[in-house]
């Protein structure tokens, strides 16, 4: 390996690496530093304030609510979207009538902009003349303001996220299913194994790497999906649908409180780093039998 070749390699890497450092590594480190600094004001530069921003965050009930909301949001979206994705993939991969239509219907939400579909769902949920209300009327149910009621708003947002994601995850299961040797199914049929038995003992273990891949993506998405919140509720009513990233957006770009925003970013980064470490050290080992 001569010096000239080394130089070549670095030249090839340089443009991509510079941008990655400038917009991923540098801001991640700068965030950490800023989280210990005060927000600069016109007449007062930023100074070191120790853990003040974190203290402010811990004292902020909205932060805790955002965290709680986000955990509930994650707890609901992850298993439901992954479970539905698996069911969809099994159906589309099977011999059902109209498979082409099924695949198209399941996958369509994935290619639509969240911002656009959120507007459609907003209309869906509208009290007094949204579609949901009309269906409710048919069954004589009382009027319900799904997005305006603290009890149902987060659930309504969660449904949209599941709807958007399930078809996307389906694709990965579908790819995995298509890679499974069909003779396995025949062998199981000859042995008289039930469908459930075949699924649990053969398909599920074979799909494990896919499940882990999809789960990791679902967890990441649970912490970065906010477009629908911006359109449908703006975190309301009374912060019932404020997720962490939305809280960060408000603190950073509505209140322009940089120090506090940096502290919230650090929390988000810590959450994502945890996912990465769990994936790397625990799941990747388990995925390969």
């Amino acid at each position, binding site marked *: 390996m001569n010096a000239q070749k080394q130089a070549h*390699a670095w030249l*090839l*890497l340089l*443009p*991509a*690496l510079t*941008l*990655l450092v400038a*917009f*991923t*590594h540098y801001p*991640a480190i*700068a965030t950490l530093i800023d989280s210990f600094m005060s927000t600069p004001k016109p007449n007062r530069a930023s100074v070191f304030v120790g853990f003040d921003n974190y203290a402010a965050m811990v004292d902020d009930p909205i932060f805790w609510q955002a965290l709680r909301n986000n955990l509930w949001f994650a707890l609901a979206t992850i298993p439901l979207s992954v479970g539905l994705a698996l069911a969809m993939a099994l*159906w*589309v991969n099977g011999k*059902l009538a*109209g498979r*082409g239509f*099924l*695949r198209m*219907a*399941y*996958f*369509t*939400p*994935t*290619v*639509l*902009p*969240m*911002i656009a579909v959120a*507007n*459609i769902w907003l*209309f869906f949920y*509208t009290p007094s*003349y*949204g579609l949901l209300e*009309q269906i409710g009327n048919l069954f004589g149910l009382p009027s319900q303001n799904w997005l305006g009621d603290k009890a149902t708003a987060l659930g309504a947002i969660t449904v949209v996220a599941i709807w958007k994601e399930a078809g*996307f995850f389906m*694709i*990965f299961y579908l790819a995995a299913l298509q890679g499974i040797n069909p003779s396995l199914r025949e062998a199981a049929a000859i042995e*008289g194994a*039930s469908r459930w*038995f075949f699924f649990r003992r053969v398909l599920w273990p074979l799909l494990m790497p896919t499940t882990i*891949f999809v789960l990791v993506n679902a967890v*990441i998405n649970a912490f*970065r999906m*906010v*477009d629908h919140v*911006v359109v449908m509720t703006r975190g309301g009513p009374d912060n019932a649908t404020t997720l962490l*990233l939305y809280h*960060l*957006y408000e603190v950073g770009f509505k209140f322009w409180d*940089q120090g506090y*925003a*940096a502290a919230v*970013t650090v929390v*988000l*980064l810590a959450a*994502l780093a945890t996912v990465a470490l769990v994936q790397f050290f625990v799941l990747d080992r388990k995925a390969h039998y």
Partner: protein
Amino acid sequence: MAEAVALRQANPAGHWLDTMAAWGLAILWILPLAYAVWTAFHPAEFSAKFSLTAPLTLENFARAWEAAPFARYFLNTTLLVSLILGSQLLLCTLAAYAFVRYEFRGKNVVFALVLVQLMIMPDVLLVENYKTMSKLGLIDTLLGIGLPYFASAFAIFLLRQTFKGIPKELVEAATMEGASALQILWRVYVPLAKPVYVAFALVSVSYHWNNFLWPLVVTNSVNSRPLTVGLQVFASADQGIDWSIITAATLLTAAPLLLAFLLFQRQFVQSFMRAGIK
């Protein structure tokens, strides 16, 4: 075992149930879109009233088009998406090639650093990136929206995997003929990785056509606003909430991708598959 036999005997009914459930879910899944199409193509008084005799109209689209600078937004999004994709393809091809064809000190460390971006996407770092953009004077420009995405760890990873699978013999043959490193990249690696490029392009275009939060933060005028942000500004401005017009605008925004998807379904699905599998 008895249970297994019983289940197997119940199979025809099971198949029927499967079909019902699959179709039920599919209809549920397509319902919001169907509803939007209905509302957008009918006069406002039918926006939530279903009748087969309701007259069809394109007026909602015409009014939406006039009510906001959608033509400009379309132009911005198209330019933005092309700019990002072009840069990604160029920069990430070069980087992936370096990882596959060269041995250099710190290679593994550098690759690990690249992979960090898979977990920490630019969306989360929007406060710091905003500061950087304002220092660079790129606030409210298309370049400012696109720059954080030009280098994609995902693309580098994907292309590196693909390049690794290209037979050594082909590369050796090209070397024998005296091709330079860049010629080998251009004549051997790139053509053989074409399906992966198509897959990545579809995923990237869908992602950036739909991206919202970062463009929302970094733009503040019609000159640079992409469609998603334009739609949000339009839909949230107080204009007496005319759902027919808002859904028409919504469909306009989604139309290019939706049409492309409906026409090239198989390619889309396969691209997303290919891009997702390591």
